[in-house]
């Protein structure tokens, strides 16, 4: 065995830098998770006193923790739904455009927001959704009173859902267009001979053949159900909308980093990681079973 490894030593040497760095920055933090069972004190470090499950109990009894979980699920579920439906519809409409150049132009335009960070996007959102911004000016033309999209707790979650779908749907469109392009044109020709019009063709050929991709994308997004979009919400929320806008990740940040409650923050993080890990595993398993997808 060792002899064999020695013969392949060059391959193993190549792997060393990656293994070492991943070990330090991904595996050592796993060890750091023990502080969620301790009363962490920066002076004592990992030798802080053990408290068992106390941090977890403390967290679960906080009324705003349950609210945070609810907010997370609420926003991410609607983001997932919108994030599947909108690109599917847009790709279907785009597919009806015959000229490649025009098709590609539309595709390029809607794909653009994907590449900019949420910091830039948030800056733009704050500007256009503000009281003097273009959205409210536009609504004002129809006599609508200014809406506080980012400051009103009852509207804030929907501002997040819609802007998130807006930023991301170009990516999904590209995926679905690729799937549409791979449909055998012979099927449409046969349908035309049978007298099927465009709508019937869409209903009986395009949609059924698109379904595996739709299922795959939905199943994969399941793994994100506890990530309601930290980058987006962190940059757009304010204390006035904490009640409806706080998600698990922003809560961990405020509690753990800002208020330096390292142990409690880590406990919430651990809880989230465990549930997320189960969701990711489940979604990859389902994706493999249902759509034959695997990433490695």
């Amino acid at each position, binding site marked *: 065995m060792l002899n064999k490894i020695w013969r392949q030593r060059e391959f193993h040497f190549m792997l060393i830098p990656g293994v070492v760095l991943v070990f330090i920055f991904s595996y050592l933090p796993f060890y750091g998770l023990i502080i969620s069972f301790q009363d962490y004190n920066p002076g004592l470090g990992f030798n802080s006193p053990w408290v068992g499950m106390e941090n977890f109990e403390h967290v679960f009894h906080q009324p705003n923790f349950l609210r945070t979980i609810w907010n997370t699920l609420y926003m991410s579920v609607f983001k997932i739904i919108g994030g599947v439906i909108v690109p599917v519809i847009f790709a279907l409409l785009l597919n009806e455009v015959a000229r490649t150049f025009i098709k590609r132009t539309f595709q390029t*335009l*809607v794909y653009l927001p994907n590449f900019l960070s949420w910091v830039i996007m948030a800056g733009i959102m704050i*500007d256009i959704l503000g009281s003097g911004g273009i959205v409210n000016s536009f609504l004002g033309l129809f006599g609508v009173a200014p809406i506080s999209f980012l400051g009103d707790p009852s509207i804030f979650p929907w501002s997040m859902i819609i802007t998130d779908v807006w930023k991301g749907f170009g990516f999904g469109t590209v995926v679905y267009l690729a799937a549409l392009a791979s449909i055998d044109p012979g099927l449409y020709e046969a349908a035309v001979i049978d007298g099927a019009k465009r709508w019937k063709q869409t209903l009986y050929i395009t949609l059924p053949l698109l379904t595996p991709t739709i299922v795959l994308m939905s199943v994969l997004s399941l793994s994100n159900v506890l990530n309601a979009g930290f980058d987006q919400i962190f940059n757009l929320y304010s204390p006035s909308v904490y009640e409806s806008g706080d998600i698990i990740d922003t809560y961990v940040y405020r509690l753990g980093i800002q208020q330096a409650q390292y142990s409690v923050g880590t406990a919430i993080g651990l809880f989230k990681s465990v549930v997320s890990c189960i969701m990711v595993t489940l979604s990859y398993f389902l994706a493999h079973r249902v759509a034959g997808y695997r990433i490695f």
Partner: protein
Amino acid sequence: MIQDKSLGRRLFQVINYLILILTSLLCILPFVNLLAVSFSGSAAVSAGDVVFWPIDFNTNAYEFALKGGEFFQALWVSVQRVILGTLFNLILMVLTAYPLSKTKTKVAGRGIYMGFFVITMLFNGGIIPNYLIVVKTGLIDSLWSLILPGALPVFSMIILMNFIRGLPEEIEESATIDGASPLQILIRIILPLLKPALATVGLFSIVGHWNSWFDGIIYMNDTANYPIQSYLQTLLLNFEQIMQRSNNDYTQLLAMMNVRTGRAAQLFLGALPILVVYPFLQKYFTTGLVLGSVKA
């Protein structure tokens, strides 16, 4: 595709184009607005008159941003980060992907290595343990805290691995017979063939490093070390305070613009590099999407 010239079809085409145009406009008009605001006069912006065309055209906000020390400082940190970070990513990805693209018999323990890397995609320690490791390794306030923790992007590495597997094996075999060592084969033969895939994952890295902001915020105690996106993030929160601190000499310029124009100019400058390389990005990101998944 078979042509359908019925009235219903034509009506559909008109409505379809209208929907596509409106949706695409929705995706780019916010950027047009941002640009218009950044070039407009303070009074017109405050009155909410600026829509998609600048009013009282001036470049005060840009002069201000470009004269200010902090903006350039942050830009310089980001440039260093993108260059070094991408270089690190590419070197580590190639070194890791090549041995892992081999079969089990050629590299003993391949499955163990794969598991070791893939687990980090499923489960992570969360922000607080990660933060504590960066503190413990003494990287706080150094550029390396933005580069080393993510030095090996596992997903991109898998894309490369899949790409290498698609290369014809005979080339390597003949090189082995000629007495080339694995490292020689990697550098002399595989690397040149890997160019298109490297362009794809390299662009992933460039965009990722350019757009990252959160690690800068938590790992840098001194705001002078902030990369551009972290700097812009603080700008969103308290523009006036930061501007007054950094630009004592330019109070005159500051008086001539308002918060919205100043912010818009800096946001636009922060987005500019991505907007410039966008046409290339789009192509390579779509390729990466295909390379990333193996349909079994």
